[in-house]
């Protein structure tokens, strides 16, 4: 008889472990060198820690596993590391002088949809920079991100850079205030349904030029020319992205793809958002961004920015890159 393991989980054997370990060791060295000390938090947290900020986790990233402890408290398996680190900063470092820099290599736990190759348990590698404003903090984190990806051995990766506040600002500017409509528009956008987006925009009854703007802006992606092409009123909304870009070292700036459609990643992102792509892999291998309001929910209001990389997906991308050579 064969004992099974739950779908979405798996065993790791020595050959794979050696390669994963070598990759994470190289990344850890990058993080440490940049001043990001490694932390570890419990895999189990009180549910209240994860529900406190009333975040919109989207369908995939919300905590999926709950257990009762011996006192009847509800515990959850963490679905990400940013929230536990926000808690850690507010409690262990409540009077420490910012900025604070932490890195982590830790598993997160999420629900899966059947037959999709998703993982219930997966290793994340990431950093959090607490107490550093935009653009300087964002620039530092993007630089460490690229250093870590370089150290991991990835060569063809790109980092998409967008701004969670851009599209809402555009809706404000066009005076679209109906909350229900805004939510529907943002949902179509988050789903990547541009046909549905066009229908929703068509139903607004705004003039053609404004409608075109709402449809075209989120599909704009590419080099700095993407920002140049925007009309004047929108220039103000991308000053943040532009400021970040001008401060980046050339080798980091070359990795950036401006992506105005990158509007919502995880619920806590407030400003810059980024996603890491590799042409050798069909899904993003990492995500990051600014979360300037999250720490406030834990009683230590500080601006913050960070990223997390999916180590297994990086490994898949790395092996695919090697095959393509």
């Amino acid at each position, binding site marked *: 008889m064969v004992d099974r393991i739950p779908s979405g989980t798996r065993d790791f054997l020595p050959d794979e472990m050696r390669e994963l370990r070598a990759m994470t060791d190289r990344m850890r060295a990058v993080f440490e060198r940049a001043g990001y000390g490694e932390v570890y938090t419990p895999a189990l947290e009180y549910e209240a820690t994860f529900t406190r900020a009333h975040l919109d986790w989207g369908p995939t990233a919300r905590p999926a596993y709950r257990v009762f402890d011996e006192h009847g408290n509800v515990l959850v398996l963490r679905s990400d590391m940013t929230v536990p680190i926000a808690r850690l900063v507010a409690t262990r470092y409540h009077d420490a002088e910012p900025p604070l820099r932490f890195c982590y290599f830790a598993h997160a736990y999420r629900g899966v*949809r059947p037959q999709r190759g998703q993982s219930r348990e997966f290793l994340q590698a990431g950093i959090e920079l607490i107490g550093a404003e935009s653009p300087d903090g964002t620039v530092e984190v993007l630089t460490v991100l690229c250093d870590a990806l370089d150290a991991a051995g990835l060569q063809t990766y790109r980092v998409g850079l967008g701004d969670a506040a851009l599209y809402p600002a555009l809706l404000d500017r066009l005076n679209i205030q109906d909350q229900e409509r805004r939510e529907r528009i943002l949902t179509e956008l988050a789903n990547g349904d*541009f*046909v*549905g987006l066009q229908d929703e925009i068509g139903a607004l009854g705004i003039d053609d030029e404004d409608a075109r703007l709402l449809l075209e802006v989120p599909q704009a*992606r590419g080099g700095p020319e993407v920002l140049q092409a925007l009309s004047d009123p929108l220039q103000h909304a991308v000053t943040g992205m532009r400021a970040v870009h001008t401060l980046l070292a050339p080798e980091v700036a070359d990795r950036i*793809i401006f*992506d105005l459609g990158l509007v919502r990643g995880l619920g806590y992102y407030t400003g810059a958002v980024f*996603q890491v*792509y*590799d042409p050798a892999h069909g899904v993003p291998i990492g995500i990051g961004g600014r979360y300037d309001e999250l720490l406030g929910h834990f009683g230590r209001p500080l601006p913050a920015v960070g990223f997390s990389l999916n180590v297994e997906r990086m490994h898949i991308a790395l092996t695919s890159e090697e095959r393509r050579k």
Partner: protein
Amino acid sequence: MSDLRIAVPRGALFTSTLDLLDRLGVSTKDVRENDRKLLFESAGIITMRPSDVPTYVEAGAADLGITGKDVLLEQSERELYELVDLDYGHCTMVLATVAGKDPAAEALRRLGVMRIATKYPRTATRHFLETGRQAEIVEVKGSVELAPLTGLAEGIVDLTASGATLRENGLVAREEIARSTARLIANPVSHKLKARAIDALLERLDAM
């Protein structure tokens, strides 16, 4: 077509899709001449069942794909970009039952639940959930029209273009659930990393 790989559905959308690709400047001669071959490297075309198109595109095994909205509705959790309504392959997802007195409504009234056969279990489940009716969904893989004629189910949820198949089997459409057309979909990573090639294609499409 440069370095883009596009997933083309065999079946009802096949010919219209090849015609569209011809007009976009993608040579489909090879595809038309080889009925069994699946991968056409030089043209950047792979062919498959329509319901497999989202699978290939989501995984990045194809950058772009063409499939029906009905397929996308059934696989709505896939992480894809839906770029363009291609405006062909028009059809409607309907609830149909045998002509005359509606046996599904009768079952719902007297038994509290109706049995519905379909190839689209998720779309059907969602529809009855949203309209507040209890339905037992029976999934079948083909010839759905047989189900209400043999007592397997009281009604079906299926796709119809002209209504001819329904009529021939003595069925009538009772409700329209969704309209469907062919859609151009993209892998989100390809959409970023191959932006220029994809946008060039969209521009040619727009100009037609």
